[in-house]
């Protein structure tokens, strides 16, 4: 039994800033609990520690955030990756504190701020259902609003709810600079509360990402009428859209993607060369560059720093599992799957798909029917995860050759058996907690489940 260096003495870690006594006590208690949690091997402890801090002092987040330059990143998909890229960009200028473990609810944010060095810039990934609270407490320097689509509807009911909550919170935080995706009508409406034309208090930097997912924005978030997409009219990196009855329309982007380049309104053109695959990551990078610029980082340096990011919390990581090369991909909702399907190796390369329905995944996997799984035709799919049976039925109706295997290691082995190459390559796509289960099972040599 040994104390880890970081665990003792906890009081020594408290930053000598002029926080009120109550906050310091709250932070100290949270830190001690976090260390204890780590010590017993229960995990990183940032959530439980943050909970304790917030229980003692509800204003802890607000007080600890004061004096930091901070950026909050939120949306349905791409939060973790964008936060990682943005943190890389900010690191070109000095120390950065970020919740890289994905603890993206308020307790996780408290712990991140508390661990941060005095004067460090803070990049916070925030759960889309809690961004409003986070804005109200942190009053971040900038927020980066990525996208909103159906996900975990059992927990949040409606996607539009998030947009409405964001809008109210931004209106109440006039000093916050907003960076928003101009190709997502829900995000545009949420960010529009800060439109200088509307109230003149703060600016929005619009990014043209060329987002393709539209299924959740067919009714205008402002008035409920139909949104029209004009395929023939593309400006600045995206297809024009507008509401059929109210003035909500795609704003003219200040920065936009053209091929692999990010073009800025002043004419500068930055080549984004990532080690992360796919359009979704180009889009994440574009949002991250704009976010970094909002905090005063030079875009050229931001792009160079981001090009060194390889894997993000295990996503895109390649593991060697009993002779097979397994690439891990995360896809947790229909919009995410639309991107993941494009990243897969072509058929007949086999795929393992893991589906859970835990609290963090959403308890209702009906969304599997919104994913065009017929596109997996021509290869073997191994269904796994707590809800692998739901997936198996979905694949049966899509007439995709499949089998069900609850154990992650055996699922990978099954997928690899059909491949003749000396070192088989298998893609594993899983939703949130299934991804964690798979990663643990495949790296530890233990069983999944």
């Amino acid at each position, binding site marked *: 039994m040994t104390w880890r260096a970081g665990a003792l003495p906890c009081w020594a870690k408290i930053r000598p800033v002029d926080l009120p006594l109550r906050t310091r006590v709250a932070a100290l208690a949270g830190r001690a609990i976090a260390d204890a949690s780590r010590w017993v091997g229960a995990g990183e*402890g940032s959530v439980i520690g943050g909970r304790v801090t917030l229980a003692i002092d509800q204003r802890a987040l607000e007080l600890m955030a004061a004096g930091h330059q901070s950026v909050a990143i939120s949306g349905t998909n791409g939060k973790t990756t964008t936060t990682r890229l943005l943190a890389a960009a900010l690191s070109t200028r000095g120390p950065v504190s970020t919740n890289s*473990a994905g603890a993206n609810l308020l307790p996780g944010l408290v712990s991140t701020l508390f661990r941060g060095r005095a004067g460090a810039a803070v990049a916070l990934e925030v759960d889309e259902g809690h961004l409003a609270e986070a804005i109200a407490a942190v009053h971040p320097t900038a927020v980066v609003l990525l996208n909103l689509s159906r996900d975990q*509807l059992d927990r949040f009911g409606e996607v*539009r709810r998030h947009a409405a909550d964001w809008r109210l919170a931004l209106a109440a935080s006039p000093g916050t600079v907003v960076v928003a995706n101009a190709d997502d009508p829900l995000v545009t409406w949420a960010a529009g509360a800060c439109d200088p034309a509307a109230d003149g208090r703060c600016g929005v930097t619009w990014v043209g990402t060329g987002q393709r997912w539209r299924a959740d924005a067919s009714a205008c978030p402002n008035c409920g009428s139909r949104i029209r997409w004009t395929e023939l009219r593309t400006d600045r990196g995206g297809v024009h859209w507008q509401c059929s009855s109210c003035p909500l329309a795609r704003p003219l982007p200040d920065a936009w993607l053209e091929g692999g380049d990010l073009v800025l309104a002043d004419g500068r053109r930055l080549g984004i060369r990532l080690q992360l695959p796919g359009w979704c990551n180009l889009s994440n990078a574009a949002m991250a560059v704009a976010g970094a610029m909002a905090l005063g980082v030079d875009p050229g340096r931001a792009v160079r720093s981001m090009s060194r990011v390889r894997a993000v919390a295990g996503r895109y990581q390649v593991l060697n599992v009993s002779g097979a090369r397994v690439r891990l991909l995360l896809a947790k909702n229909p919009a995410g799957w639309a991107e993941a399907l494009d990243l897969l190796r072509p058929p007949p390369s086999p795929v393992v798909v893991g589906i859970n329905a835990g609290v963090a995944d959403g*308890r*209702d996997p009906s969304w599997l029917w*919104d994913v065009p799984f017929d596109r997996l035709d021509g290869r073997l799919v191994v269904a796994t995860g707590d809800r692998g*049976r739901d997936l198996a039925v979905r694949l049966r109706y899509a007439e995709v050759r499949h089998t069900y295997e609850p154990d992650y290691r055996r699922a990978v082995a099954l997928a690899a058996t059909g491949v003749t190459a000396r070192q088989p390559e298998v893609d594993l796509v899983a939703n949130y907690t299934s991804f964690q289960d798979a990663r643990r099972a495949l790296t530890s040599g233990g069983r999944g489940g």
Partner: protein
Amino acid sequence: MVDPVAIALLYPELLGTYGDGGNAAVLAQRLRWRDIPAKVVDVHAGEAIPGGCQIYVMGGGEDAPQVLAAHELRSGSALGDAVDGGAAVLAVCAGLQVLGRRFTGEDGKAHEGLGLLDCETHRDDGARRVGEVVVTPEPYLDLPDLTGYENHGGVTTLGPSARPLGRVMVGHGNAGGDGSEGIVNGRVVGTYLHGPVLARNPALADHLLASVLGPLAPLEDLEVDVLRKERLHSARHPHMHMPQLASGWRRLLRGD
């Protein structure tokens, strides 16, 4: 060559939030597996509803799109005419509410429905009804227990001429205090169950198909049977899922 059986999927972009479009795919596939040609016709908002389809399918949706869908449907009489002409309808969640006499939106405003089902939906102050559902169908339907997932804020009360789809064993269903779930009027079936409901309940899918096509040959549904057993068991015995609870706790402590 026989004309394929046409299944219209109404307003998938407005009433398709919960994977309910899968119901149309299930119906079509179960016909094809019986060597009966079938096609799914997507009907988008702003387009006229085609007459002459054998089955019309509507799903769940969010509040504003639901009001928009009701508005679109009321602007013509195509759906009512099709039902009079012998077509079947499956309406899920928001779809059910829209087919009733009236429903209350999130804003508290009452909206007129299509009146194909004798029911009204209002909102109460309670929390949304979310979770696994088990329904024992009305005996005359001769169907096995239904499994699904509900997620709605509506309270649906049935009118005097309405027959429910079944009785709720687990979950809330219509939530009107009478223990009923769904509503049936001839070939028009409304339910709160997602899943999608026909993917988890092939007998209900075949019931709808048979209501317009007559008796059908049985199909092998082994994979669905395993899923049904798992879902029905999990809904009836939520406390028995200790492994999931334990992993939930581990996750909570680890903070992911």
